[in-house]
């Protein structure tokens, strides 16, 4: 894909999004007897965004700069291994968001850390276990016991000795 095509697609996506936003903004009150209403600002902003996306499309399609863009390859898509590494972070965060309150911070993050470390190429089991433990139970301990930031507890938290974690 060329940089020109990338910019054109981006402009079209933003244009469509701005039209949807404009439609939503028009459903709000544009003006009231007291002055501008809740829809006033969004209507103008969505309109401006639509105009800017059209201008960007024109800029990327016509003129000398557009010809330059047409000859430049866009560094947009990673290779296969890169895509696997890329996919693992969103999947890990989705998992964290889903299990955090169900399984607790420590267990959820331990599993997430193991998966991320493995996907990013770490193969030493000892390193994986050590880093995953520090990045989960270690951080949970620091935040819960030193900084008083409450995190969702897990079943493992109860195994922490009282001299370390208190009663």
């Amino acid at each position: 894909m060329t940089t020109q095509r990338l910019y054109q697609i981006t402009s079209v996506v933003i244009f469509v999004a701005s039209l949807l936003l404009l439609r939503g903004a028009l459903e709000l009150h544009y003006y009231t007897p007291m002055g501008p209403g809740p829809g006033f600002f969004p209507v103008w902003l969505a309109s401006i965004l639509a105009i800017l996306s059209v201008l960007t499309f024109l800029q990327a399609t016509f003129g000398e700069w557009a010809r330059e863009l047409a000859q430049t390859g866009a560094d947009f898509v990673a290779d296969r291994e890169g895509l696997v590494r890329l996919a693992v972070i969103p999947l890990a965060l989705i998992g964290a968001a889903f299990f955090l309150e169900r399984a607790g911070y420590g267990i959820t993050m331990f599993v997430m850390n193991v998966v991320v470390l493995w996907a990013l190429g770490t193969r030493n089991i000892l390193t994986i276990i050590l880093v995953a433990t520090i990045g989960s139970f270690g951080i949970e301990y620091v935040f819960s016991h030193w900084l008083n930031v409450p995190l969702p507890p897990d079943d493992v938290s109860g195994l922490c000795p009282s001299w370390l974690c208190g009663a």
Partner: protein
Amino acid sequence: METFFLLLGGFADVLHPGNLAYALIGCVLGTLIGVLPGIGPAAGTAILIPVTATLDPTGSIIMLAAIYYGAMYGGTITSVLINTPGEAASAVTCLDGYAMAKQGRAGPALSIAAIGSFIGGTIATIGLVFLALPLTRLALTFGPPEIFSLLLIGLVLVTSLASQSILRALMAAAIGLLLAQVGIDPIMGMQRFTFGQLELMDGLAIVPVVMGLFGISEILLSIERPLTNMFAPPVGSLFLSKQDVRRSAGPVARGTLIGFALGLIPGLGSMIPAFLSYAVERRISKRPGEFGKGAIEGVAGPETANNAYANAALIPLFTLGIPGSPTTAILMGAFMINGLVPGPTLFVEHAEFVWAVIASLVVGNVILLILNLPLIPLWVAMLRIPYSIMVVIVLAFCVVGAYSLNNQPFDIGVMLVFGVFGYLLKKVDIPTAPLILTMILGPLLESALRQSLEMSGGDFMIFFTRPLATTLIVLAAVVLLSSSLNVFRRVKVDSEV
């Protein structure tokens, strides 16, 4: 004299062992963030907000400010040792800093960077002390039209300098303003773009958005290519020779001046003072041919300008409530989390707090100078940690940071969405700095506009009947027009991330 006594009171507060410890911890954490490539000061400061969650407001802001300017210095270490800037402002330091390291002179390069940063940062803080009260008194006379015009010129400056394309920067600004519309309308209380989600009633929380845009997106960009480990050369002696001191004195003085002056202008980003300082030093040097091959002036000037800018950029934030960069915008968010609103009223309603924070800037700069030179071997050791391990630790902090804000997993989702969004924006060269600044300033801008129009019964001429508002709007139009005329310009000036 009034300022002097207020500052003394600030020092009395900040020299309290607890606050001193927060400044120390902040400096260490900030330097660590600066050292680690891929985590800029903005994401780093946002990630560490939960660490300060249980502190009192003074301790919290002292620590976050220390993280901010610690990160500005930390970026230098990787620039000099491995030719990789830890944050954008240190990019120019690679040119001569890395060349010095290859000659076995990494120690003097890091020393002059630390000394220059200390001098620049301290003088900029002294400037903040003297400018704070006059600017605050002026700002207290502003009505909604003046506030709107002031915010507008700030946004125009941010936008016009943020990218090689004014169109893409304007799009980012418009997207940021639209994101600021999510939630309850501040004047009439109507829901806007909440899609029935209770979690969106208060609007999008700024911390997960910043973590996503600047933290998660950077991780995604870094891991799409094969990961490589870094090897740093030996640092050697840290002592400066007499010749080094003589050659650095002028660049440090000029760097301070450049950084301080540009820090007063919202939205310039820390790269511009550093690059301008480098250009000035090269232009006036008797040995311009040495630049790029290990000239100490090429490290002393930009590093001083960079830190003078970082401290001076707090002046518009403290006195006018206008953040000049994404990191100062995060600080503004941290103020708000602590129930404080940056701007002129801060000096009236929370004078004790604000002067303690200002005094902490001086103390923090001293801590950075004392702490960083002996700790350089530790920072070098940090660079040997594989990137995959860094990713895991950063992700763990991000999850804690996003979740603990409102104790709801929804914010982890917000962080993820904005992480992917930020990754895509960077792929299509849409700058993220204007987006985050407009998102933070959006509600203030809208309130000021609507209040102004209510005052005038809907007549936009109110902005052209008040001298200051008119001047600022005309200035904003001139800046926007001149940037638009250069719409096809090639010079890329990235904002600080």
